[in-house]
């Protein structure tokens, strides 16, 4: 799986596609017909693709990164030509021969790109946008990324800005506290009648307060009364957790350093990635990519990639964003093992991390078993409980379950992952119904035990990947607008 050496698999290439339409379009172009002058050498792949115009498009890909360049007018990134070219190359059918001399237009671009990469840490370090501790406040995160100050900012001004923002957030948290205590005083039954209007206004105030984490919570609170039976209990839970977050921020000076970091991250205060890389100790390991999930709200694609260190056994979550049809970076295909330095964002229960540096993979990589070791259902729940003790706002914790048999849902009971040995089962998170391919999981299992990676949380287990023994992804791109509770 060495990105510099061997050919990639089609799966790896398709993982780069920004959306399903690009995947399909790229698949169509993965035939020799439109291509001419294609070749590959030293981690570069190039070719001319005949399109509808008279001049063919010039497509070149740098496998290191990867980076793409194409003369087509598409705003998708990578475009279908780059995907098609890579698929053709991956097929190994001889249409993209190795070792030729790149044409000038391709060679120049590759050389220039490598020169720049060598000059600065930028490309190899793959800087994602700065972020908070979880995806709960995706928007604020990406905005923070765009607003990231340049390198030479005056430290005094930076501190001043941070203080001003903290004051604003505190004002927002106080306002939300008033709103919540008013609600509890009048009774939740009134919330059912009040409708969305009142919450909308509060959400807008949280944006003003630069607290995207609180805004997301408020939007969820607004949706709960219409979420079906049992809503008062769920509403009280979420009100209480929002209250806990408000109180945490209002008393942040009394918290331990880690819990304060968790609180800030949950509020949506982001740590710029450059600062993170400079301040924290990297963790080097052989990281196995356990799964990937893309979510979109139409404007922004959020990609979550889960990793587990083979030596440390630590879980890590890489969060990245792509706007306007671009594929979020980095695109790490499930099943890949990468020797890399990760830096964890500070938290009471660190999970989110940034990819600091990838080391060249030794040649014997990928020879070991494909299916990662896993645990049973009780251990999975215990892992979530243990993590929750450190971070009370955690919705779920990544876990590899081994030896579980999927049990399909019935009219009055949801899906389960059952352990036939103990007679115990984890319910599948009911929100998976429309967005996770549970039937694919069932088909792969065939009524027998399988290994499943996913998030174990208080709603149940949300499967992401299973193995047959090749990794089988179970998640399609989730669209945020319809999910229960409006969580992003």
């Amino acid at each position, binding site marked *: 799986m060495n990105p510099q050496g061997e050919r990639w*698999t*089609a799966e790896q290439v398709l993982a780069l596609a920004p959306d*399903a*339409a690009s*995947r*399909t*379009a790229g*698949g*169509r*172009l*993965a*035939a*020799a*017909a*439109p291509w001419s002058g294609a070749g590959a050498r030293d981690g570069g792949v190039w070719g001319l693709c*005949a399109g*509808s115009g008279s001049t063919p498009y010039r497509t070149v890909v740098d496998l290191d990164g990867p980076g793409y360049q194409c003369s087509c007018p598409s705003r998708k990134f990578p475009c279908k030509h780059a995907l098609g070219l890579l698929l053709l190359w991956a*097929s190994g*059918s001889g249409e993209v021969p190795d070792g030729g001399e790149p044409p000038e237009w391709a060679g120049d671009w590759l050389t220039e790109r490598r020169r720049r990469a060598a000059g600065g840490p930028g490309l190899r370090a793959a800087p994602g946008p700065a972020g908070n501790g979880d995806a709960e406040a995706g928007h604020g995160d990406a905005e923070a990324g765009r607003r990231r100050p340049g390198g030479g900012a005056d430290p005094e001004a930076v501190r001043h800005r941070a203080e001003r923002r903290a004051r604003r957030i505190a004002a927002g948290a106080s306002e939300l506290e008033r709103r*919540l*205590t008013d609600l*509890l*005083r*009048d*009774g*939740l*039954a009134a919330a059912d009648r009040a409708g969305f209007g009142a919450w909308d206004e509060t959400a807008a105030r949280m944006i003003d307060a630069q607290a995207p984490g609180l805004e997301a919570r408020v939007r969820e609170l607004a949706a709960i009364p219409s979420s079906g039976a049992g809503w*008062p*209990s769920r509403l*009280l839970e979420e*009100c209480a*957790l929002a*209250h*806990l977050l408000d109180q945490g921020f209002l008393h942040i000076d009394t918290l331990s350093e880690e819990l304060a970091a968790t609180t800030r991250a949950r509020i949506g205060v982001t740590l710029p990635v450059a600062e993170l890389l400079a301040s924290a100790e990297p963790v080097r390991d052989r990281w196995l990519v356990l799964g990937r999930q893309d979510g979109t709200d139409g404007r922004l694609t959020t990609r979550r990639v889960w990793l587990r260190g083979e030596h440390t056994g630590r879980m890590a979550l890489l969060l990245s964003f792509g706007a306007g049809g671009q594929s979020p970076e980095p695109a790490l295909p499930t099943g890949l093992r990468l020797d890399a330095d990760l830096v964890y964002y500070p938290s009471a229960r660190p999970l989110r991390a940034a990819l600091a540096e990838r080391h060249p993979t030794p040649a014997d990589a990928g020879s070991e078993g494909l299916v990662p070791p896993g645990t049973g259902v*009780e251990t999975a*729940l215990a892992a*979530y409980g243990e993590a*929750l003790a450190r971070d*009370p706002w955690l919705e779920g914790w990544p876990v590899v379950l081994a030896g579980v*048999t*999927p*049990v*399909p849902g019935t009219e009055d*009971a949801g899906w*389960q992952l*059952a352990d*036939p040995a*103990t007679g*115990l*089962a*984890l*319910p599948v998170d009911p929100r998976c119904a429309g967005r996770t391919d549970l*039937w*694919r999981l*069932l*088909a792969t299992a*065939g*009524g*027998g035990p399988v290994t499943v990676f996913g998030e174990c949380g208080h709603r*149940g287990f949300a499967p992401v990947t299973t193995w047959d023994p090749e990794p089988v992804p179970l998640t399609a791109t989730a669209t945020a607008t319809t999910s229960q509770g409006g969580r992003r």
Partner: protein
Amino acid sequence: MTPRTAPPATHPAVSPDASWDDLVAAALLGTERRTPPVTPRPGQDAAAALLDAAALSTVRRRAGLRPAPARPAPAPAPADPRPALPPAARSRLTMLLADRSAPGRGSPRSAPDLAELLPQWLALANHHGYRAPDALLPALLDAARARTDLRPEALTLGGPRALWLARLNGEWKFALRGGAGRATLPPEDTGPAAGPGGDGRSDTQRLWEEGLFAERVSLLAAARHHDPAAGLALLSGTWATERAEDRLMFLDSLRDDLSPSDEPFLEQALADRSRNVRATAAELLSALPGSALAARMAGRTRGCVSLTGAGRIAVEAPGACDSAMQRDGIVTKPPSGRGERSWWLGQLVEATPLDRWTEWFGGLDAAAIVALPVADGWQADLHAAWCRAAVRQRSAEWSRALLGAPALPPSPGDAAPAAWRDPARLLSALPPEERAGWVAEFIASHGLSDAFRLLGVCAVPWAEPLGRAVVDALDIARDAGSYPWSFSGVMGLAERCLDPGQADRLEVLTAIPDEDEDTAPGAGGYWSEAFQRLVGTLRLRETIRAELTPPGP
């Protein structure tokens, strides 16, 4: 998951006996109306204290969740011993199925239509005896659900696990209803020896007696293919207890491997309670030229049709349809607008073995007999009945004679030959090369406008000179200045059926020709796109074929 039942840890703010339900009840009513079961800190109001207690309780309950009791899992899927697909073919199938679910939004008109290649892909994979990747079964079943033409091949590739899965999801019920692919016999079934059940029945027998209808249909087809007599024995064992519609389906499935040894069974079915079963049995018997039914029909026909001394065929249609004729499957009542007597004659001739005519008409061959004049305007009826007989009895000689020369123009004055009303079915009785040759010649003289159905019965990939004839005709159509979408049907067929080896020869047609005043505006560009797509599809088919190599030993 269930909350842990252990006693909650005590906390100063919460009354030890306050349950989560008490907190929810207080929150619903509001702290104004009901004092919550919490003790506020000094200076703290009741609502904030309730939120404190609720937060503590929420996190505690979430952290203490226990697994739920497992419901029974479905019985394991039956094993499928067929080999797994090569990796490249597997990703190709993923792509073909993905294209179906996201139909080519914004894809150029010059790109291949992947969904149209799925049937070929499935047929080739089945030909090599691969099984579908488990993870792709849901997508495969969805595809088959949306497109009935995919079902036999898709369900064959899916095999036992696809049926297992379909039983668990109401959306895939269609898979259990019949026509479910081609089953293979249970692998252990080497003879009538006792199966693992120990009750003296073989696995085949058990599946036949207890299986779902779909499983039984495919089992019967597989058994018949393997050993027609054994398959028939299977069917006759339970025949009396089957429902009428099932009897009809089972009987129909005998068609493919019909043999003279089936005659006694079919004769018996002529007395079936169900009219449709009787009619199908008669039809099958008439396709067996040596059968007693065929002989009875021939006897009746002999009394109606004769060759006069003047070399004309004289026809005296039957005057009545007696009960013996009815028992042999003759339908008494004609469709509206047809005379009874010609209706009965047609059915008699259709069921009469064709080689009898040579015997009766002094050794003339089919071509000579077809050329004979027919008295009193009976030609159309007689020729139409011969056409049906040629199709049913799969007689190449008679099909050839009735089709005549493809270059023959449909004569304007005379009524068109009966064969030309549906030449596609007669063509099916000819050997593949001859079929391709006939259609090629037909296209060369008549163009593409009536060729669609004829091309549909030609073997894929099209043998030469057919491929060349189609390409030449398309080239001519382009030069004549028409738009390519007038030929989209034939173009689509060409993409799927032309020999991929033609791609290089077609490459020159993808160039955009100069426009002159005769051509429709912009047509050249559209033709170029259409040919690009044709070439692209052919290249893709070549790749697909290379990816789907036969499994190793």
